[in-house]
Structure formats: structure tokens, C-alpha cells
């Protein structure tokens, strides 16, 4: 049998996977094991594949995601907490041929930004919202977000989230599925290799909806936050698989 050395394999013509050039070549500032890094790469890969980098404008809100503009090698706006869908509206209506997407956490898009996100969906804004759901406001220390699970302990629900007092976890992609202006609403997760690949496909589908001028598209991505969950990164991902996916079903809720 032909024996091949490592050096013989590691040649440019044999390259099958490397981090896309649409990501700036420097270290990411996220915590070890943070789901943001995975999603950033998926988004960048889709934009790379669709060859739309020159006309792509990203909008970021406030949270750990605030740092995301430092990662992408294309134009970005940093706007106030919760307002990305409004600013994205401003950008898309100013430059309708451009490709406009928001990158937000669940606290940003569903708490303070609920009105902005909802109304962009209602108006059928031809933008794509990428929402990272880790159930907490991670950047500020892990306070409860609207997506926190019943009984989930966070620093503002130290006895566990009590649905009688603050309601239950918010299922947003399902909520907007009946709004006529919404062309695509889906939920995916980056808790396993298989799901990560599926997430990339959902993001690509959402971006194609914008290309087709079909309406508002949203992809919610369940991610782990090892720091706030206080779990080692592999265990944090397992927690997403076991607990988050149980509460928040993966799938496409509307595809017009």
C-alpha cells in the first residue's frame, strides 16, 4: 500500500477546508468555545459563496455580538442596543440593491429590540436577521433574557425563572411565521457538526430570500455560552443539545 507522509498531504492542491478570507486574519476575542465564532464563519462562508461581499452591509447591535464587526472583512454599522432591524431598514431602503443583514443576540433582538425586529417583519423589510439565542444577556454578566427556560438560574433569576412571574421562554421564529411580510423564518443550532452544517444551509436560504426580494428573513441560531452556563465548552454544547433543542424545536416555520 502506498504510504503517504503528512508533508505530502499538506499541499495547496489538497486543501479542503480553511477559514474564509472574508474573515479578518486575527484572533477572535470571544470566550473559548463561544458559538459566535462558528456562526461568524458560517455567515462569512455564505457571503463568500454567493459572491456578494462588495455589496454586503452588516449591522450589529449591543452585546457580545458588538465585537462581530471586527471579524468580518466587509462594511458594518454598529447601532444602539436593539435597533439593528431599524437601522437595517434605513440602509436597505437607501441601497436596495445591496445585501443587508443584522447580527444580534436574543437579548438585543427580542428584548429591547422587540418592536424594531417585529416591525421590520411586519413591513416585510427585505433584510435578513441572524439572531444568536443563548438565553441570556451574556456580555453584561448573564442576566435572564426573554428566551430563558422555565426554572433557568441566571443572575436575575437566582431561584430559577418563574413563569408565573415573568412568563415562559419566547419562541420568536414561530411567532412571526404567520406575518405575510416574512419570507423565511427558521431555527437551527450550532451544537454539533451535523447541525452546524444545517445552520449554514439555513443561512444561505435566508440570504437567497433577500436576493429574490421575497421579504423579511430570520434565522435563530441556538448557541452555547460556556462562560455564563458555567460549563466546559463541550458540556455547554451538550447542554444546548439536551435542554435548548428540547425547548426550541429546530426547523423552518415559514418558507414563502
Amino acid at each position: 500500500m502506498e504510504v503517504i507522509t503528512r508533508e505530502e498531504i499538506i499541499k495547496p492542491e489538497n486543501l479542503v477546508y480553511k477559514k474564509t478570507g472574508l474573515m479578518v486574519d486575527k484572533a477572535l476575542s470571544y470566550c473559548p468555545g463561544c458559538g459566535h465564532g462558528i456562526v461568524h464563519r458560517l455567515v462569512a462562508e455564505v457571503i463568500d459563496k454567493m459572491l456578494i461581499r462588495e455589496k454586503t452591509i452588516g449591522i450589529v447591535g449591543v452585546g457580545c455580538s458588538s465585537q462581530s464587526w471586527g471579524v468580518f472583512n466587509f462594511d458594518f454599522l454598529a447601532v444602539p442596543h436593539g435597533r439593528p432591524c431599524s437601522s437595517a431598514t434605513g440602509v436597505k431602503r437607501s441601497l436596495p440593491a445591496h445585501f443587508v443583514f443584522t447580527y444580534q443576540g436574543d437579548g438585543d433582538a427580542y428584548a429591547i429590540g422587540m418592536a424594531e425586529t417585529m416591525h421590520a417583519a411586519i413591513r416585510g423589510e427585505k433584510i435578513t436577521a441572524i439572531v444568536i439565542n443563548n438565553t441570556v444577556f451574556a456580555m453584561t454578566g448573564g442576566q435572564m433574557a426573554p428566551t430563558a427556560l422555565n426554572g433557568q438560574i441566571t443572575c436575575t433569576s437566582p431561584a430559577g425563572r418563574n413563569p408565573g412571574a415573568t412568563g415562559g421562554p419566547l419562541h420568536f421564529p414561530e411567532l412571526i411565521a404567520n406575518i405575510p411580510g416574512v419570507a423565511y423564518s427558521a431555527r437551527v443550532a450550532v451544537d454539533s457538526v451535523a447541525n452546524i452544517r444545517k445552520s449554514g444551509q439555513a443561512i444561505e436560504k435566508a440570504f437567497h430570500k433577500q436576493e429574490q426580494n421575497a421579504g423579511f428573513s430570520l434565522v435563530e441560531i441556538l448557541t452555547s455560552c460556556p462562560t455564563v452556563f458555567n460549563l466546559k465548552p463541550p458540556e455547554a454544547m451538550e447542554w444546548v443539545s439536551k435542554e435548548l433543542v428540547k425547548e426550541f424545536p429546530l426547523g423552518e416555520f415559514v418558507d414563502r
Partner: protein
Amino acid sequence: MKELRLMKGNEAISEAAIRCGADGYFGYPITPQSEILEYLMAERPYETTGMVVLQAESEVAAINMVYGGACCGKKVWTSSSSPGISLKQEGISYMAGAELPGLIVNVVRGGPGLGTIQPSQSDYFQATKGGGHGDYRLLVLAPASVQEMADFVPLGFELAFKYRNPVMILTDGVIGQMMEKVELPEHKPRWTAEEIKEISPWATTGKTPDRERNIITSLDLDSSKQEKHVLSLERKYSEMEKNEVRFEKLNCDDAEYLIVAFGSSARICQKSMEIARAKGIKVGLLRPITLYPFPKLPIAELAGQVKGILVVEMNLGQMVEDVRLAVNGKVPVEHFGRCGGIIPTPEEVVKILKTKIIGE
């Protein structure tokens, strides 16, 4: 009996609120004040005193929750930091227009915009000149120690209800985050329904046969009525200016030069004063405690005594304008400040005092 504890500034505010019988807190996470909300959640006053603690979906929602609670005559409060306080401005203006008591805590961070999470004092204009729309004022208290963070909560509520006006505690990330010993007061019970009716007969508590209905609004389309209303607000503010000015003077009796500073800048300048005095420079410090009403008279008085005044504040020069107004050209007034979250050192202040004021 009073209780002595080593506490963080943010936590001292929350503990003081529980102890002074506050009825409700509505907040939202933002650095550097999230501990205010977290401490209350951890202490669970809703299980002991019945105090409501709710994390709102945004700072706008929170201030409007405060508006609602205030209409009911309750002792309600909220907290945030600079960008979140900007969001609250509409609600604050409404509270002032509708003559509602309430407490708003601003743990200032660097701005403008998202700025930085490090300390700053650059919300002075916003706090004292009315960050919201219309002719109104906030009574503004500026603590310079963790003890004052605790003391100003019951004081703030007292003044808010005395004048039926929102009150702001304007602090910064230094005092919010640092730890000092605090003497905590005894627990005071929350007001009963009867007490509320007596203290705030205007409150919406449900129209009973013994009184007319209570409508709380800040709208009046009849201009002559609206003018009367706004003039009555002005009378309130004149009363505040007459009765509620608070300040601290250190080493001013024989001072040849004066430093004016508030909050954590005042703590730094206290050290600068010691350093300067050790070098034979007769400098005094005036620390405004109420930023509105501003201690114009004591500053005007000292302007007749000193050769120059240095205003030290972590911003591009905001309180210095009020100092200049009070001094009215009598002596030179200069500003020194660092921005971006940088905190000046005591030695830096002494150097500026020497070059800009003394002229060495």
C-alpha cells in the same frame, strides 16, 4: 441599631432602597450598574418587604413602569448608565410634567454613543439642564462615597415626594464599583395604602366616593392652563433652589485658590488639595452635592476671596459653565478633565492647578 458593612457602591444603593421601604424597582442590564438589579434579585425583597423587582425589556419600558408605579403614589425607582438614561428621557420629562415622584440612578460611563464602560462625568448637562424635552428640572444628587450612595436613596425619595418631581442620583463607574464601609440604617416599612392616600392624595388608587377622580397627565391643550402649569413647576424649582442646595467645603477659609469638583473627581481632588497644601499652596475644595440646585451662592462668595478656580470633572467641560455663571467674571475659571474613561491622578490635577491657575 445601625449596621456596618463593606459594600460596593451599586449594591449599597439597592440595600438602601430595600431599607427605606421602596415599593418597586424596574431595571435593565447595562455595565457598570447591572449589580443594582442583580443584588435586588438575589436579596429577594419581594419575599420580605413585598418590593417589586422586575427586569424590563428595555430602559424605555422600565421608566414607563416607574411612571405607572409613581402614579399610584408608590416609591419606585430605576437605574441605568448613560445610553440607557438617554432612552429614559421621554419618560423623565413626562414624570416632571405630570409632577410624579421617583428616583432615577445614573451610573455614568464614557460617552457619547456606546462610548466605553469605564467611568466618566459627561452626563452633567443631560442631568442638570434637562436631558428630556420641555421646561423642567431634575433635582440631582451627586454622591462621592459608598456611604452617600446609600444615604441619598432615602433622601432622594424624600425630596421626590416633597416636590412631586423626579430626582436623579448621578454617580459614576468608580463609585458604583468600589467598595467602602457603609453604615446602613434600620429597615423602614413600606407605606400602607392609607399612608399613600394621605401623602399623595393625587395618586390613582381607585376613585372612592370620598373624592373626585384622579387623572394624571402632562397634556393640556388649553395654552393659558398649560402656562399656569409650567409656571407652577417653576415655583417648585425656585423653592428647590432656596431650600435644597447641598455642598461640602474643605479648607476654604484661608484658600487663595479653589477647586470645584463633584463625585469621584472630588475624591481625587481631595488628595490633590493635600499634596498642594503640603507644597504651601493654599487651595480649598468645594464639592457640590446637589448639581441641581447648583451651589451658586457659596461659589460666588468664594470667588470674592480666591485668585482663581479650577473645575475638575471627567468630561470636556460641563459643570465649569455653571461655575463660570456663578463667578460672573470675577476671577479666572479653568477646566481640567480626562475623557474616554481615563481617571486623572491627584498629581495631574496639582500640575494643572499650578500651570493653568497659579501660572507657574
